[in-house]
């Protein structure tokens, strides 16, 4: 394996989350009854003409921006001519010569090092029909015909399947966070093709490449690439040359299989689409589109870290956009973000997963969350207390105080009472006391545990800690 250097380029098609299709007023939606979201334009009826959904341009501007691309100010659409049953006009309207974005990159982190995966271009185009084959019959669903797509073409600068996966994860996160696309690979709103070639030395020209089409998940991209590297390496080992191929990933076989050997240069007879005038993008338009972008993952992370959130928590929160968006509602408060993320990622996530709910479907108002975080931060509530009342807190409009009272949570803050318990435990555990005095900090944890046990978890831990230390230090 290590004899060869793989070169990988990835093309990603992403369906844009717009209300209507790119060239017609049909609704852009997934999961509707077949052929219910279609009109004469989508069907390529004689005499029909495309219109242009401006929302698509704005969304593509955002995509170009978040992928660090330069934005082209003057573009035209082109016709890509080819016959295929899923291609209603037998030409696809695309931006072949003037992609809206170019020369961009996405930064990934691999082995603790940052690497820029360069992006050649982003162009806008229309999606085709979905076809389904039933024995001798083929069925066409035009709901997808004319759904806006952007195609993101990376440079051939990816060296391992690990990098490919990280690149796609990052891409998905960025596009999802920017409200550009749902990026649901299982629904086809994000689709990947990978080009793989091998060569012996970095100075050699690129080897014969093979394209693997329409891989259904990011982990399968990883598998497909490593299988393809293996396949090509074996052929090269045997001294065989091979032709350019188009392959597809079969998830049952867990391997790539041949679709077709590439014929000499596809001839798409491109020419500028005469039905759509030039698209001119002004600086104001770019600014407006960019200013409407939600906060991006990297920005969020930086912000969370600056608010005292641990690296681990910050990464985890960002992986769940709903939680991150929820947390961002507290940016202008003095909420303890570390405690807040602990709660969100811990018991609250547990509840949401159990109930299959999103956080905005609960009764956790902003005020109620602030109250909860505060009480936990002050140790007025122990983690056991939180567990006891959380479900009710999330499901009803009751206040924390009401629930504390109702559940008989007597968070013992009576100093004399606590001193009694502390004295008792110190007496019962002379060895631990000795350990502590010998400098073993761990001993204090054990003693604390014993005190909490004695009080059935209702002692105020902060207070206990203070009393215990002062006693031990006497």
């Amino acid at each position, binding site marked *: 394996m290590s004899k060869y250097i793989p070169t990988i380029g990835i093309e990603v098609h992403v369906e844009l989350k717009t209300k209507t299709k790119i060239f017609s007023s049909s609704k852009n939606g997934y999961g509707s009854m077949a052929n219910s979201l279609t009109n*004469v334009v989508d*069907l*390529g*009826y*004689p*005499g*029909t*003409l*495309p*219109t*242009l959904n401006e929302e698509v341009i704005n969304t593509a501007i955002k995509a170009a921006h978040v992928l660090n691309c330069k934005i082209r100010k003057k573009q035209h659409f082109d*016709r890509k*001519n080819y*016959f295929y*049953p899923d291609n*209603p*006009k*037998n*030409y696809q309207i695309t931006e072949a010569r003037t992609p809206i974005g170019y020369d961009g990159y996405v930064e990934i982190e691999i082995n603790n090092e940052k690497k820029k995966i360069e992006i050649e271009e982003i162009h806008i185009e229309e999606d085709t029909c979905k076809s389904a084959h039933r024995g001798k019959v083929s069925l*066409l669903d035009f709901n997808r015909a004319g759904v806006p797509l952007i195609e993101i073409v990376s440079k051939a600068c990816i060296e391992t399947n690990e990098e490919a996966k990280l690149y796609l994860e990052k891409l998905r996160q960025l596009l999802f966070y920017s409200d550009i696309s749902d990026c649901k690979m299982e629904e086809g709103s994000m689709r990947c093709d990978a080009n793989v070639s091998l060569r012996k030395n970095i100075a050699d020209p690129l080897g014969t490449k093979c394209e693997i089409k329409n891989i259904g998940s990011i982990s399968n991209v990883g598998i497909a690439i490593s299988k393809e590297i293996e396949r090509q390496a074996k052929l090269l080992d045997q001294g065989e040359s091979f032709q350019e191929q188009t392959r597809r990933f079969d998830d049952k076989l867990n391997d790539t299989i041949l679709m077709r050997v590439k014929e000499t*240069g596809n*001839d798409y*007879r*491109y*020419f*500028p689409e*005469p*039905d*759509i*005038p030039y698209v001119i993008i002004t600086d104001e338009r770019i600014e407006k589109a960019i200013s409407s972008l939600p906060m991006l993952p990297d920005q969020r992370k930086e912000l969370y870290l600056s608010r005292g959130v641990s690296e681990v928590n910050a990464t985890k929160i960002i992986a769940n956009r709903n939680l991150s968006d929820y947390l961002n509602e507290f940016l202008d408060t003095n909420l303890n973000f570390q405690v807040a993320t602990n709660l969100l990622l811990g018991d609250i996530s547990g509840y949401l997963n159990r109930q299959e709910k999103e956080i905005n479907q609960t009764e956790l108002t902003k005020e109620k969350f602030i109250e909860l975080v505060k009480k936990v931060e002050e140790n007025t509530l122990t983690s056991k207390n939180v567990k006891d009342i959380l479900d009710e807190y999330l499901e009803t409009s009751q206040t924390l105080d009401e629930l504390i009272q109702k559940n008989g949570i007597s968070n013992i803050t009576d100093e004399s009472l606590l001193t009694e318990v502390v004295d008792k435990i110190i007496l019962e555990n002379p060895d631990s006391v000795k350990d502590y005095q010998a400098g073993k900090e761990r001993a204090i944890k054990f003693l604390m545990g014993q005190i909490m046990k004695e009080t059935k978890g209702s002692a105020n831990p902060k207070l206990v800690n203070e009393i215990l230390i002062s006693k031990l230090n006497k």
Partner: protein
Amino acid sequence: MSKYLDLSLIEINELLKSKKITPTDLVLECFEKIEKNKDLNCFITLDKEGALEKAKSLEDKEIKSLTYGIPIAIKDNIVTKNIKTTAASKMLENFIPIYDADVVKKINDADMIIIGKTNMDEFAMGSSTQTSFFGNTKNPWNKSLVPGGSSGGSAAAVSARLTPIALGSDTGGSIRQPSSFCGIVGLKPTYGRVSRYGLIAFASSLDQIGPMTRNVYENALVLNAICGKSSNDLTSYETNEDFTRLIGKDIEGMKIAIPKFYMSDAIDKEIKDKLNNIIDLLKSKNCTIDYVDIKYIDKAVPLYQIIAMGEASSNLARFDGIRYGYSYENPKDIRDLYFKTRRFGFGNEVKRRIMIGSYLLSGKNATTYYNKAMAIRDDMRNSFLKVYQDYDLIIGPTATTKAYPLGQDLDDAVKAFMDDILTIPVNMAGLPAMSLPIGFSTDHLPIGMQIIAAPFKEAKIYQLASFIEKELNLDLCPKLGGESNE
């Protein structure tokens, strides 16, 4: 037989307003005439039932315009909901559209009555209406001659007074040349003036729908009704004006240019003579007449062929037998369906143009031919626009010849294009132009002149045309069907 339809729209309107006649009378007269002149083969589809229904429904409506209740024929490449639209092709022999073209909606809104769909060259490819799958149309002035094309059915129908108004489409002269051959007034508006939505595309960057009428004033009225920006056509423009406003206004001192190319030896002497008469007439009104050069105008035909056929090859790709239209039965596989549907569905001229167009866009040819042609086209347009800095209008003949015998030129694809050398430059530059009858040949065939304006200056065309029309006062009714038109 009543003869209301030979009256002017103003006269008909007065009769309608005074309730002496109803729209139904007009429709019935129309169909009587069509029946009598069936041999002209002007129509592919007639919609008598629909027309009578519309006429009836109009009776309760207030008469708001001169177009109220007026029958109109629509070229069969403009889609009409529930009325068969064939583009004169076997490919669409039984195609019934499920939507109306923008112009059809506007025609309906103007209270006009659609009587049927006119014959044409298949997919508007031709200039004699002989490539129609439904047989050729005859010229009402002499039935052994072509009516011109591709809007030959519309031109012949108006010429024979089967309908006062028809719509045509013009990609390289398809409104103006048949108008010239049939002695009617045909206008190709500025590219973008009329929405193309619903016009079955031939060459998208050149196609334009326009009115074909008996006289200049009525032509302007129809353009008033059909123009305007449409949200369905990104290449259409918002324009709001009355095209009749300069009609009858003095033309004294107008500045007029004639491209030298338009008076070359390629033009029939008889036609040049007629045009010279017009030049004298204009000079007598103190108009300036200058001869000018326009860059690349002599190369317009090959440039046009590259662009038109390239675009056509793509526009006609959608006819594949899958969703609508002719579909070859029991194909072996999808390739077989494509091949046989297109082999048997298209006629020879259409296939020839698709093949040439595909070749021209193929691989490197796209840069060698198409891109270059587009660049030269810009130069030609700019050269035209420069002339309009100093002149109001450009004039010249519409066609190099008068109507010629049926069957002639059928096998000579190149010569057929030469019919259009004077009209094509106008489409290439996106300008508005009219063909106006200016007299007859010695064998009494109509001859037309072209009046070409700067973009969106149609009103100027109507001004000059109305002046010439009035001065010449020609009898433009062909003597037909043994019936006198006196």
